[in-house]
């Protein structure tokens, strides 16, 4: 036999019953070659270039899906941070450019286009400020555009003025989309150490160090990892942490290889100038039963995610995922950690509703391998200062630990602790979590920059 029965059947089961999929194929498109700053012409250029580069993307992805029999869940586009493309334009023109992005995504049948972004970790230009101030209106008036702002890096420290501003931007975005439970905030991420090749929307953008057009792939497979852990524990009840980590590592290797195969095939079919970028070795859940990170942690012996031990278990799982993945591909990139969008993981929602999982525990998880506070629902009366302070805490974790952290907070207008807000589809259901009510206002109003940490000096 060319392959052992075991190999064939394992692969078959991964696809058929364990939700093995490629979570996202994201086409990064550079807009730095815009030949003009005249707003109308610039908007037309942005639209045309995206259409030109991504014209065949969906068709090609569908073909590859058919050929290899592995589902590709999301097809998305990221572009050069729009604050760079738009810098120098007047306030109203930012909306025009965002509308061009929206229109391109719509014409291509792509659900989200990311890159309405700014990089202000050390300071903001007047253009960056106009960009950040335009975010609420952009997110309210477009359907598919996603925004992100990088406010901190390990090298530069934390731009606390930007942190403060983003608190009010999030608040205004929630208000601007109040009729849809503040859904605009689901399309807005605040980052520390943002990466240039992240394939995962909403936080994706096409960095300035990237070539013209690249394909970045996000692999996933919590369902496959969960099944592997369960199988090992059933076969060998005395399997210890080392054995479990080894099992996860092997599984991750296989998932990643599949991801790289798919990504390279997409690139080959799209042809030049599209180049293969990276594989993001993340575990990302989906609102499908069994495709949950919470369930993985629970399969390791925690009564419910959020219990003491959760942080250690998560660290072990994701570290093993990375080790297997790094052996499988030389093109590791993106965030490569654990995505824990609370609303998109049935196990996480359950844990919040049972009071097992708190904001503070989620924060602790971001200090090891979780890539941030993601899709965390907060009461509608949470103040902008509190939002900024939550962001500041996360930024500090990212900056000190040399890791990428994203914050996507949803202060749902009118919602109270305990409510369950349904966004439908991929975004899932958001349980509203309690927030510490002690006020951080004076600290947030200090402004300025938290200097880069001692660990930033490596030379």
């Amino acid at each position, binding site marked *: *036999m*060319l392959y052992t029965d075991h190999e064939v059947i394992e692969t*078959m089961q991964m*696809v058929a019953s364990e939700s093995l999929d490629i979570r996202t194929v994201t086409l990064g498109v550079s807009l730095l070659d815009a030949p003009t700053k005249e707003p109308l012409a610039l908007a037309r250029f942005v639209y045309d270039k995206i259409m030109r580069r991504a014209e*065949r993307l969906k068709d090609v992805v569908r073909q590859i899906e058919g050929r*290899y029999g592995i589902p590709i869940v999301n097809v998305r586009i990221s572009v050069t941070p729009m604050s760079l493309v738009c810098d120098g334009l007047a306030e109203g023109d930012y909306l025009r450019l965002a509308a061009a992005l929206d229109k391109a995504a719509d014409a291509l049948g792509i659900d989200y286009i990311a890159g309405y972004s700014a990089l202000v970790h050390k300071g903001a230009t007047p253009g960056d400020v106009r960009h950040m101030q335009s975010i609420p209106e952009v997110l309210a008036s477009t359907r598919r555009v996603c925004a992100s702002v990088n406010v901190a890096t390990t090298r530069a420290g934390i731009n606390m003025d930007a942190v403060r501003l983003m608190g009010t931007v999030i608040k205004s975005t929630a208000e601007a989309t109040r009729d849809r439970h503040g859904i605009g905030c689901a399309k807005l991420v605040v980052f520390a150490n943002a990466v240039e090749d992240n394939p995962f929307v909403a936080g994706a953008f096409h960095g300035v160090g990237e070539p013209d057009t690249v394909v970045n792939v996000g692999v996933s497979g919590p369902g496959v990892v969960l099944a592997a852990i369960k199988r090992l524990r059933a076969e060998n009840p005395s399997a210890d942490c080392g054995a479990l980590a080894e099992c996860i590592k092997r599984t991750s290797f*296989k998932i990643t290889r599949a991801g790289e195969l798919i990504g390279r095939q997409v690139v080959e079919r799209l042809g030049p100038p599209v180049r293969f970028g990276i594989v993001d070795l993340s575990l990302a859940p989906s609102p499908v039963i069994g495709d949950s990170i919470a369930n993985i942690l629970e399969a390791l012996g925690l009564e419910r995610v959020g219990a003491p031990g959760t942080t250690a278990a998560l660290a072990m799982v994701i570290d093993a995922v990375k080790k297997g993945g790094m052996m499988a591909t030389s093109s590791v990139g993106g965030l490569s950690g654990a995505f824990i969008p609370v609303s998109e993981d049935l196990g996480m929602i359950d844990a919040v509703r049972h009071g097992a999982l708190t904001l503070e525990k989620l924060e602790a998880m971001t200090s090891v391998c979780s890539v941030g506070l993601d899709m965390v629902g907060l009461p509608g009366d949470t103040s902008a200062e509190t939002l900024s302070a939550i962001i500041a805490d996360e930024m500090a974790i990212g900056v000190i630990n040399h890791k990428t952290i994203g914050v996507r907070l949803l202060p749902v207008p009118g919602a109270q602790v305990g409510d369950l807000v349904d966004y439908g589809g991929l975004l899932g259901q958001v349980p509203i979590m309690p927030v510490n009510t002690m006020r951080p206002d004076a600290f947030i109003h200090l402004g300025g920059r938290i200097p880069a940490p001692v660990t930033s000096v490596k030379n």
Partner: protein
Amino acid sequence: MKRLITEQDLERLGKGATFQVEPQMIVTPSARDFAAQHQITLAYASGRAGQTEESALDRAIKDIVASELGRSDPALVEAVRAELAHVGVASAEPPTDLTPVAGPIPVPLPRDPGGNRAVITATGINRTGILGRLTTAVSKLGGDIQDVSQTIVAGYFTMILVVELGEARRTTFDAFRAEVLGACKELGLQGVVMHEDVLKAMHRV
């Protein structure tokens, strides 16, 4: 649904007989060989308007171009058609028989990289003759079975077939998969068809 004419259908006829090929029939390569060996004449239904033949050929060209290029390209379709007409293929034989036409198509089309093997797993309750019927179905689709294995998974009988699709320009992997899954369903089996590259990527370093 087109009817597939296989060797067996022609075996019933005597030497020197004539077989009437209707427009809704597809004659397999082995059946054509058999016919040639036994002096059986394959008579194609006459009286069809040139229009119909052209559009069937056009469709076949379009399918091939779409599967190779990943998009429709009217200009290329036209080029291939013109080239075929030039080498006298378009009029040589009705296109309902989708066997290769006059050697390779003389237009350089991008080829799929690597091999083109499918791995089929079919799970169900073991019944007499089930493997034979599945392999026959795969062969009829033009697949060359290179390896067969049987095992029991969670109490269910599971067959694993490694099938070489060869150049298989005429069928996309997608279409092949759909046909095999259909055949599995008819046999009461649950089938999964994967491209070999996936297994190679996952299990071979």
